[in-house]
């Protein structure tokens, strides 16, 4: 049985609980995609033009450092979201992202999404509020990771 894109959007945790017409709004900017394992989905410095709602498989958020890279800073899996830089100018990715296995996702065109948010402030507010919740959660987690608690901890 195949679902419409709107149904898939509505089922994704980022948009869970939103009314059907909002899901349609987002679906209008989206397509269902399959990403091959090993593909570099995003590249640091490249235009940030897509929001990915991951449905299946995992994507590693990475930073490349000569002699050490790539370093995985986050693993994004089913139900999670890849990509925030599409929200703010200059709309360029700050990290690399690589599909560590075959990925199924909804690819939302960022320009389309921003235009719809601009046109419908209520939708825009809801979108930013939901994204901000995820970002806050990640920021808090990152701060704890900074403390290197399992290692020697912070020197005084």
């Amino acid at each position, binding site marked *: 049985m195949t679902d419409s894109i709107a149904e898939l959007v509505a089922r994704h945790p980022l948009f869970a609980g939103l009314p059907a017409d909002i899901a349609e709004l987002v679906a209008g900017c989206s397509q269902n995609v399959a990403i091959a394992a090993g593909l570099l989905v995003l*590249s*640091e*410095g490249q235009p940030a033009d897509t929001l990915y709602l991951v449905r299946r498989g995992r994507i590693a958020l990475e*930073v*490349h*450092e*000569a002699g050490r*890279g*790539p370093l995985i800073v986050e693993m994004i899996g089913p139900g999670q979201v890849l990509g925030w830089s599409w929200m703010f100018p*200059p709309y360029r990715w*700050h990290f*690399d992202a690589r599909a560590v296995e075959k990925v199924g996702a909804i690819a939302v065109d960022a320009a389309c999404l921003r235009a719809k948010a601009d046109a419908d402030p209520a939708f825009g507010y809801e979108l930013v509020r939901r994204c901000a919740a995820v970002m806050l959660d990640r920021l808090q987690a990152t701060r704890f990771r*900074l*403390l*290197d608690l399992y290692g020697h901890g*912070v*020197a*005084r």
Partner: protein
Amino acid sequence: MVLLAEPAQGASGPLTPSLYRVVARRRETADVATVSLECLNGTAPVFSPGQFNMLTAFGVGEVAISISSAPGETGPLEHTIRDVGAVTHALTTSPVGSTVGIRGPFGTDWGVDALSAADVVVVAGGIGLAPLRGAIRWLVGDPERTGRVTVLAGARSPDQIPYENELDAWRRGGAYVAVTVDVAGPGWPGPVGVVTGLIPDAPFVPERTIALICGPEIMMRFTIRSLMDRGLAPERIRIALERNMQCGIGWCGHCQLGPLLICRDGPVFTYSESLAELLSERER
């Protein structure tokens, strides 16, 4: 009958080090030390900040280390070294009075001698402050200086700030110096965060500023982006790159980055789109 000349004697020259005595060794952080070196035979060669020497720990090996002192200073040559392997371990623990070998100086320099009128912004990440120290000291001590010197340094934590006791001397010399750490314990009064966080408020005028950047490549990439966001043109940005160096003189082929040899065309490079492309071509 043609008799051939005798083959040339000696002159392996380019790979033979000169001898230097370790006259002082100062611990900077847990794994970083600055060694002060005096030439045993004659005078040390003239160098420019940004250049590097090949240092030999006899019996262990040879490694490329940036020069950390400034030219024209009285006093010994200084190298700040981080202990990350056999050779650097030997160098950072070499007893005062022992001998090391030096070949050099090699490579391109920061070009500080032409920057008296410019505003100079120095952005350093971690041990990246070491190749910049000679430049900072020269800039701060330059009697012809009319432009401003700004130093922005980032370190992991307060105990990992190199040259901590020199920072005030640079301030007294007129430089604006800001240091941030990734994470700190109580008692740290300064900024906490990545070094690029210091850029938006740093006092420099982009149109007459030259930026000198050194640190991990990730840090340099984001610093360049932040500086360009403040209006700095790419050709006003200079970075120091690092690759494996075995000879320092363009023979061994190890330090290549695309068409460039870091030992000969670098380590200091003026930023450009083609350099950006070389750096972004992740070797994976």
